């Protein structure tokens, strides 16, 4: 039980930081909202989706997934900063569970995602996003997004504990996530990509997540799936498999790394 309560103390620390410095929340929200507005109005006019409600219906799941995928950046930078300041050493010298700090951090970043997704959802609604699937499915969609963000966060733990400087953490995570979110069906149809890229895009976890969320929000996924591949036909199942895989690999690696960090 101590493992859980220790982790929650670390999570609470992060929430307390948000309370002490509200700008942290503000800027976590502004960027995704800006993305919603930019994509909605810059690309929205020129991309014909052939679906009722227009581009924004397809865009929102894409931008939700992109945002939660980037959770790993926050996790990584936060941990690198803690490590630089010697906080990780202090935590490691305490009689607490060996996984408490990293679990607490990923849970805290997950909690921040709740606020971010809510803000984005409201913004989306204002600019015309209307999920049609009913409350249960929509809620399930958001749960899906939160779990994906949590899973991605663990990749961030490993990156954050492996680099020495915050700036490196920022760049490393950007390089890791940015291609992943654009080499996908999130913003444009994969059908326009060169053939090899199409395969990558179809198997990309971001694509399966986006397709899965579109399904849960009551849309047909029109932005890919031309190849009739397994991930295109079973996006939800494939996403679940990906999330389990990511966590199965990165949680043990991250906890191990935490217990061996040299600073």
């Amino acid at each position, binding site marked *: 039980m101590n493992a859980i309560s220790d982790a929650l103390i670390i999570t609470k620390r992060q929430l307390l930081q948000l309370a*002490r410095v509200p700008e942290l929340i503000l800027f976590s929200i502004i960027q995704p909202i800006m993305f919603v507005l930019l994509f909605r109005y810059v690309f929205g006019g020129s991309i014909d989706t052939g679906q009722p409600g227009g581009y924004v219906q397809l865009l929102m799941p894409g931008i939700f997934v992109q945002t939660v995928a980037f959770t790993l950046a926050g996790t990584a930078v936060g941990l690198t900063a803690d490590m630089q300041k010697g906080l990780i050493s202090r935590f490691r010298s305490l*009689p607490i569970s060996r996984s408490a700090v990293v679990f607490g951090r990923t849970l805290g970043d997950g909690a921040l995602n709740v606020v971010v997704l809510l803000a984005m959802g409201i913004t989306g609604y204002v600019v015309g996003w209307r999920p049609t699937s009913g409350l249960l499915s929509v809620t399930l969609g958001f749960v899906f997004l939160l779990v994906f963000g949590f899973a991605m966060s663990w990749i961030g733990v490993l990156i954050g504990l492996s680099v*020495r400087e915050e700036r490196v953490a920022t760049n490393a995570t950007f390089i890791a996530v940015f291609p992943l979110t654009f080499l996908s069906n999130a913003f444009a149809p994969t059908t326009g990509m060169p053939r090899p890229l199409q395969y990558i895009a179809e198997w990309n976890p971001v694509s399966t997540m986006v397709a899965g969320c579109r399904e849960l929000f009551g849309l047909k996924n029109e932005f890919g799936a031309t190849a009739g591949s397994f991930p295109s036909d079973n996006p939800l199942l494939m996403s679940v498999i990906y999330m389990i895989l990511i966590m199965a690999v990165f949680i043990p690696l991250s906890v191990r790394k935490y217990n061996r960090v040299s*600073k």
Partner: protein
Amino acid sequence: MKTIIAEDLHKSYNKGSVKALDGLNLDVEEGTVLGVLGPNGAGKTTTVRVLATLLMPDSGRATVAGIDVLKNPDEVRKIIGLSGQYAAVDETLTGWDNLIMFGRLYHLSAKQAKERAVELLEQFSLTDSAKRPIRTYSGGMRRRLDLAASLIVKPKVLFLDEPTTGLDPRGRQDMWGVINELVKGGVTLLLTTQYLEEADHLADEIAVIDHGRVIARGTSDTLKKQVGGERLEIVVENQHMAATREIVAKVSGGAINVDEGLRQISAPVTTGSKALIEAAKLLDEKGIHPLDIGLKRPSLDDVFLSLTGHVAEEKKDEDLASTGKKRGR
């Protein structure tokens, strides 16, 4: 009883090319203060990290309060406090928030954590700043809060890794006062420092380390004796340097050190004040009026110099050691 024991600790990085610890041995008697003294890169931080369960040595043995550090790190963590050269506290949060968080992580109840936070803030004169974020604190205040956080459960054994590095003289004095109070309370303390004066001031015993091993240990007095007794030091005007050197040679018989820049001539003497009077008399006969003349007991700087053959030089190895392989690339 020996509260801290380290036996033959080895730790190397980069496939053995950098030896952070090279057969380090030390022990600390219960309730006493051991000052681990050495330049940057000597292995001080690595030693503390091993003893505080943060780093596994390649080989060797270590116990803290009878508990095997390598086999039972969790038990060790319950009875130690660690405060490092970086103020390892959350700067976004207030002093109060930090102490509560660490109190809860030590598994105090909410009520106990609050009571302890009040006590510690009072003890370290931080009550007035308790509700301010740490980033608004001065360096000395941060360091005090960091130390307070390591004392939440009244540890039996305390590790302070360069507790005053980077502090201004006043901050350092304050910190010394605080540490002296703690020691009166009976804690066993291992403290590292690169300030010879600090070790002299705070420690019962001093272990001088260089290149990852202890090269001398003892009280500050015994170490000073090891270097030899007192030194006669005379400062004269330039034109009298040569004549003064001859006089010092007559009085001392030991190796004479001439510092042209300081216009100082010094040499070891065994007869104390007798040598001083003799030298003064001979100078007077020659009509030389020294600008300064006196006997000086060796400083720990002298100790270091005579033990290692080099002054307490800075190396980059400590950084390397503390960040591990990454920096070596």
